[in-house]
């Protein structure tokens, strides 16, 4: 495992599906944060074979459950004084707006930019969201 360094205080988003880190990085606007952010791509994992990890230094005031809509298998570790003080899996929100993007070219959201990208959770077990308008799954 590549060693990025010990995090004193912050958040580690673990078990991100390999290749999915940038989606979360972009959604969280991490490029605008002043603190250190490490993205580890394709880390070896016993459970997933390959996974991505994001380490964020400092505090982050966001609803982390929203991240479940982007990747329902992630684990969020809250770090304080170099220790994991809380480990949680996000509770999938029933509906999200402008978190996921509908890629169906036949969907009204593809032509009317003022229409928000709204998704509803239709399968909690498998983390499947469907576009509110065209019902395409993601």
């Amino acid at each position, binding site marked *: 495992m590549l060693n990025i360094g010990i995090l004193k205080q912050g958040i580690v988003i673990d078990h991100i599906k390999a290749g999915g880190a940038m989606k979360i990085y972009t959604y969280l606007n991490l490029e605008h944060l002043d603190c250190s952010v490490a993205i580890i791509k394709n880390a070896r994992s016993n459970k997933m074979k390959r996974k991505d990890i994001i380490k964020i230094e400092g505090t982050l005031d966001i609803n982390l459950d929203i991240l479940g809509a982007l990747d329902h298998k992630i684990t969020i570790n809250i770090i304080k004084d170099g220790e994991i003080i809380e480990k949680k899996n996000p509770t999938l929100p029933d509906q999200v707006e402008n978190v996921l993007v509908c890629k*169906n070219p*036949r*969907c*009204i*959201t*593809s*032509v*009317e930019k*003022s*229409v928000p990208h709204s998704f509803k959770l*239709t*399968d909690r077990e498998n983390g499947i969201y469907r*576009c*509110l*308008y*065209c*019902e*395409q*799954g993601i």
Partner: protein
Amino acid sequence: MRHVISPTDLNLSELNELLELSEDIIKNPKKYSEACHRKKLATLFYEPSTRTRLSFEAAMLNLGGSILGFSSSDSSSAAKGESVADTIRVISSYADICAIRHPKEGAPLVASLHSSIPIINAGDGGHNHPTQTFTDLLTIRNLKGRLDNLTVGFCGDLKFGRTVHSLIGALSRYENINFVLISPEELKVPDYLKEEVIKARKIPYKEVISLEDSIPELDILYMTRVQKERFFNEEDYIRLKDTYILTSKKMSLAKEDMLVLHPLPRVNEISVEVDSDPRAVYFKQAEFGVYVRMALIMLLLRESEGRPQC
């Protein structure tokens, strides 16, 4: 404000009320000839349609109401780039109820979110077409006498056919329904529909390729067109299109009271010789479409808040 965007927007009790009212209209059409006097239906058709638009317009005229609208996006403000939301805000002040057809999926839902009058989805791309589903249900109920205890065969393009998906969803809410899904491998019912509707509701079903083998067990045969453009391989299309031409010979294998439905337009998947078979009810089905739309317009106007009942 009540809208009908998807066939399941009406619960079973409301659906029953709709179908009962439709049946009464069939029996006594004159009784309803002034039911929507002075009411206006806006038909916003962003893409061409023959049957659906005329059926909606005939329905409103039969109720003594008036119609206004457009029949293609070229003749509307959409050509100038106006959004669906803005269009419906304006139309809401011109009409009492609106039927909208749009090539983009979800457009009627967007309209409903900005409308102060009831919106009826008259078809949004390959997505929903609730009044077609209500028409199908009325046809089965009127001619078969029930919507439960049925073995329903769907034949043809089960992958892209929105009418098939909607009717599967609607019939899944009734007791003792069996589905026989007859299609080529390339045009099977999508997995999500099987998982989230058919299996989730524990509906017995089977997927088969041969129409001849399955037709004897069916109470309803819902035919759809196999679309050539869906095939990657010309040979497969040529081989499969003949399998799904319903002929008198195949009808001879069916039950005496089996019904053949088709959402139309029919191209060549039902031989014209079948038209004279009393079990072929697809033209009756198109006629019922007017009655069910009359009933839906009446019920939605009745529910619309702060407006006189019709």
